[in-house]
């Protein structure tokens, strides 16, 4: 009972905090909320924007969810996404290949780059016991610097005078659009949904997926059953990185610019943490969770354009959602291996 009251008090104070923050900008909270909902689901165009913003969150959410299943916190999705996006862009502009093959290669290279970027974190965790939260965060900063360096020098488009950006991808590497009438939603959304289903099947219907979950649930028991802990940790971290790298490649092939540019990701990787947690680390649950966050993004953008409320409010909302929903569903089990 006391627990329920504490949680209720937390939710009420969180809502009050957001309302006060909104009111402080001079917009009545009730009105801001109506505008926010209109911006997320108001009409077909807003729906399209919401779903477009869902694409990267879907894949980064899956990345975080898969890692969580093995008991790993991948905070490095942001860096993996950047590296995957940039390497995907390079594959897309530097080679001439037939249509389907080219796009496929962009996605594969992006996923590989993300996996390679996550690997040190897996290795250090498995062989040295160094906490993956620290290593993945360090790798984020390294990714950001590497991407900035390549974008300012070797991969910079010749004509980019003011904003560093790569050349445009060849048309053979573009992600097709879902509808012919408007060019707002790419096929990336379907890629994300297929990957989610595939991951669910792997986790819950195959021996290898079962082993991965066993390591996350109770590593001591898994060890006793002869499952290789270090191999599972390394493989899962690489898979998690591959998914975040794929998110970057899908983005670069699907955004209207069809190139990689500065500030390519406004923090999709970090949002993926919130999505993965909200989904309870279930790949199928990631789909609705990603839509929720896509709606928060889409709604706050709309709100920013029509009212005095800045978009930063979304960051606060995200943090509070993690605290409220995910934090309370991720209880520590007594005697668990962590």
């Amino acid at each position, binding site marked *: 009972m006391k*627990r329920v009251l*504490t*949680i209720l008090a937390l939710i009420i104070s969180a809502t009050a905090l957001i309302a006060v*923050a909104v009111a*402080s*900008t001079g917009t009545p909270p009730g009105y801001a909320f109506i505008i926010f909902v209109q911006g997320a689901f108001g009409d077909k165009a807003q729906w399209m924007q919401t779903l477009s913003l869902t694409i990267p969150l879907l894949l980064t959410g899956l990345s975080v969810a898969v890692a969580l299943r093995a008991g790993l*916190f991948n*905070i490095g999705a942001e860096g993996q996404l950047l590296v995957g996006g940039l390497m995907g862009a390079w594959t897309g502009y530097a080679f001439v290949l037939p249509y389907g093959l080219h796009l496929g290669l962009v996605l594969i290279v992006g996923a590989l780059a993300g996996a390679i970027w996550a690997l*040190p974190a897996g*290795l*250090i965790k498995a062989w*040295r*016991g*160094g*906490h993956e*939260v*620290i*290593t993945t*965060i*360090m*790798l984020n*900063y*390294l990714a950001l*610097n*590497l991407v*900035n*360096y390549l974008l300012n*020098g070797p991969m910079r488009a010749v004509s980019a005078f003011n904003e560093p950006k790569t050349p445009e991808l060849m048309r053979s590497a573009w992600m097709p659009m879902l509808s012919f009438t408007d060019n707002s939603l790419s096929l990336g959304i379907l890629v994300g949904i297929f990957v989610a289903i595939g991951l669910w099947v792997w986790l819950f219907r195959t021996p290898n997926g079962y082993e991965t979950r066993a390591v996350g649930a109770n590593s001591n028991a898994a060890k006793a059953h002869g499952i290789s802990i270090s191999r599972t940790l390394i493989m899962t971290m690489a898979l998690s990185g591959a998914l975040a790298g794929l998110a970057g490649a899908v983005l670069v092939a699907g955004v209207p610019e069809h190139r990689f540019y500065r500030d390519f990701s406004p923090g999709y990787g*970090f949002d993926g*943490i*919130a999505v993965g*947690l909200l989904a309870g680390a279930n790949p199928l649950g990631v789909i609705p969770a990603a839509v929720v966050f896509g709606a928060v993004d889409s709604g706050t953008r709309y709100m920013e354009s029509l009212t005095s409320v*800045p978009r*930063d*409010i*979304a*960051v*606060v*909302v*995200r*943090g*509070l959602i*993690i*605290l409220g929903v*995910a*934090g*309370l569903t*991720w*209880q*520590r089990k007594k005697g*668990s291996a*962590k």
Partner: protein
Amino acid sequence: MTLLIQVWILGMLRGGTSLMLTSLGGLLSERSGVINIGLEGMMLLGAFAGAVVSYFTKSALLGLSAAVLAGGLLAYAHALLTQRLKVEHVMSGIALNLVALGVTSFLLRRLPDGIGSFSKVPSVPWWSLTIVACVLMGVIYVWLNYTPSGIRLQAVGNDAEKAAQVGIDPIKVRYFGVIASGMLAGLGGGYLSLAQTPGFSVNMSSGRGYIALAALILGRWNPFGAAAAALAFGLFYQAEEWMQGTPIFGVQLPTEFWLSLPYLLTVIALAGFRGRSKPPADLGKT
């Protein structure tokens, strides 16, 4: 030559003080058995509160007090979540970091521009806080090893159940450890915005909270080790400021390389580090 060495040593202290303070904070939390990933957010909130209060009151000391309080406040939330609601420690820390980043970025836009400027925010000389950090290092070492309350804190971190059997209240002890860690991290943040580079900018802590945690691990959860590792990282933060554009063996390295140094070295240090000394046995379980 001696001048050069002096410059490097001073640079190391200047770049490392915030890491030292935060790392010592992390020590108090982790020795009581609570993982504190939230140090980053506590630093950030501390840096923000310090700059804002200093700007409005025109007093750097009041600013520093506000930094300590802000860090402690966020740490209180961490203690409440992990102890009372039994939330996963890492989860709670990540969420608090996000909230701190969101709140500070949001509020910074609503406040006058002076918060971010060197001339409008009264500051303290940086070395004054370096002295505070060194004194704290000694005090924490003596307190942990030679006073009943310090030994109790270690006992809770190593085996909470045994500690409870001899009449120690683990929850109370951990509340103390976590809140104290937040206050130190807040001071570490205040150092950034009131001493090292006066004024606040978005995401000012930029990963230092995590680097402080890495220093704590490399320093084997011991005050002197943690402080030494923190200073080593501080040196590389300074190196980045000095070395940009300086050719090494005739090769001009890109700016991004120097910016990457502290992070790169953290990864290399963790990769080469064998956990010969164990973390507190009950870390993260309680």
